[in-house]
């Protein structure tokens, strides 16, 4: 052992020698440049096209490849083909907002109630319902949309195609967001806070209202943001369940007009507005989430992943 100790310093030295060792055996603490470069490449690939599309929605001309100067004509300027003045375009904006708000307002409360109820009502029925809920999360959207289409055209014909059907479908498609996120939070909270509340005199319902709900608020809010944004972005269900042009939200309008029709920067403007809705929801959501969890020593990274539904 003493011999080894003596040899150790002798082996280290000369810069030339250590460089040769470095070639054969790379420094284990080096930064993974290759992976980092690859990551940046991916990020550029994923974001730049969108940035260009947004940029060209402010183009003065109708070209999507030559920049002709800044203008807001595709938003408000043009009396024919701007989002503000073209009936089809601004109707789509309104319809998207209506769907997103209605869906969020219905979906989040029933999803939260579902999560709490299923978590506490331990029974075979609760397990099956939970199974159905997770199933609705993984099923391809097209299959659900086709089934819903048949439901409202063949069975519940009083609903019919249109806004009601769209909202009904969007709610069921998005129900798993609040259900899954709130349930996860419930599990991490545990039972002791509710027990403490009943111990201090609250009834079971009182404990839910005064202790559990405030503690669930960040999760409720995060899921509301997710439901809102995913409704704004939804395409398949609303395409199958919309009827006339007046019930078509932005995504359907863009899809219908990409090849011909209302093409050009006006569509980009519409898509940019859609993007704005989601981004505003996300940013507001993140800020509010941080504010609500300020008592919980949570890093912003955690907040970010939570708000993205991870």
């Amino acid at each position, binding site marked *: 052992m003493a011999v080894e100790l003596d040899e150790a310093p002798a082996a280290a030295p000369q810069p030339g020698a250590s460089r040769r060792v470095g070639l054969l055996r790379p420094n284990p603490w080096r930064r993974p440049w290759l992976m980092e470069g690859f990551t940046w490449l991916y990020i550029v690939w994923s974001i730049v096209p969108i940035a260009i599309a947004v940029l060209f929605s402010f183009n003065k001309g109708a070209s999507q490849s030559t920049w002709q100067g800044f203008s807001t004509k595709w938003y408000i300027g043009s009396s024919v083909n701007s989002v503000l003045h073209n009936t089809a375009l601004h109707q789509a904006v309104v319809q998207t907002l209506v769907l997103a708000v209605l869906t969020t307002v219905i979906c989040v409360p029933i999803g939260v109630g579902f999560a709490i109820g299923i978590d506490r009502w331990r029974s075979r029925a609760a397990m099956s319902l939970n199974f159905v809920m997770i199933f609705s999360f993984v099923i391809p959207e097209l299959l659900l949309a086709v089934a819903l289409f048949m439901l409202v055209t063949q069975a519940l014909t009083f609903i019919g195609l249109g806004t009601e059907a769209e909202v009904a479908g969007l709610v069921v498609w998005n129900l798993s967001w609040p259900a899954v996120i709130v349930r996860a939070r419930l599990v991490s909270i545990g039972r002791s806070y509710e*027990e*403490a509340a*009943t*111990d*201090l005199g609250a009834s079971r319902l009182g404990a839910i209202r005064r*202790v559990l709900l405030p*503690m669930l608020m960040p999760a409720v809010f995060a899921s509301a943001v997710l439901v809102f944004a995913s409704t704004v972005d939804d395409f398949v269900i609303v395409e199958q369940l919309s009827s006339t042009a007046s019930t078509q939200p932005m995504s359907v309008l863009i899809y219908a007009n990409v090849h011909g029709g209302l093409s050009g920067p006006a569509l980009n403007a519409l898509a940019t507005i859609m993007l704005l809705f989601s981004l505003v929801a996300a940013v507001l959501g993140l800020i509010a989430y941080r504010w609500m969890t300020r*008592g919980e*020593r949570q890093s912003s990274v955690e907040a970010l992943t939570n708000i993205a539904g991870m």
Partner: protein
Amino acid sequence: MSEGHVELVSLTKHFDGGVAVDGISLEIRAGEFFSLLGPSGCGKTTTLRMVAGFEAPTSGKILLDGVDVGAWAPNRRSVNTVFQNYALFPFLTVAENVAFGMKYKAVPKSERDQRVAEALELVQLTGLEKRRPNQLSGGQQQRVALARALVLRPSVLLLDEPLGALDAKLRRSLQVELGALQKRVGITFLYVTHDQEEALTMSDRLAVMNKGNIVQLGTPADVYNEPADAYVADFLGVSNLMDAQVDSGAPGQGCCRLRLGEFLLEARAGTIDASGGVKLAIRPERVHLHPYEEAGPNRLPGMVEQLVFIGSTTHIHVRLATGVALQALVRNDGSTLPYSQGTAVNIALPADALRVLPDPGVSAAEIRDETHGDQLLNLTS
């Protein structure tokens, strides 16, 4: 306000998996500091949760000042709980946490503020009213939990391992404080812990539990000095346990002759009228070491195997000629111990310190295994 007299009558709790509490009966006097002590899974927490109302008993009664509250919801019982993780509401301030329960007790608003202030003063947290729980240290959180329960002036306060999450030093100082606090407020405390030191220092009386049953009930001194069986002897502090045979030869008055291998011993404590195979227990501090030459009655030859310096004391591990390992405890008075590894010694086991215990049917080693975790905790704390 009621007195705080608790009586459990053959209280039983079955879970899907089996029996958690197996028909225990005990009485807690009003104003008493009573502890339930035992390893994890012994049923002590389930018992406390039944008294609090979080678990419904399978059968049996919980009498609170003579009224059976077994089927009452937790919010109807005049008992309050200090939880192991404190369960302080993170979205409320310290003052709001403490005031939480009073909203359900129809306490007038003016009185509420005053009582919150009093409770916080009682636990020495005045000035921290506006803080949130996560801005407090563990010890402070523990005090808030205490204040939140005490402010309701319960007849019984239930404490579920309240010091478990704190470090050793803080735990010591809070033990003393908690004991003093209980004397001051005069409320019955039902304290659940796996830490024998906590139970011994604070309790007026304690019950040692094992596998859903009460094994022994008494004052700390009773239970420590006169353990009812090998399980209690081993769980409370370090005990030397030996298998021995009662010698059929005529016993003297008030004493019992035992055979340990080829040696004969006399014991004056415990079940001295036993016969057949028994356990012998002796506390390490009662084991004395003498030079090898100084043989005598109740002395056995042995050899020092290891010296463990603890600070205030030194644990000396010795092995008897019969093969049994024992521990002796020597107070450190500044002098150097005349022993080292391999020193041959004569080990004195005074007859009045040697307890005869009924053999519970398990070997001492098995008991030691079961309580090993707690032993380790005790050694490190």
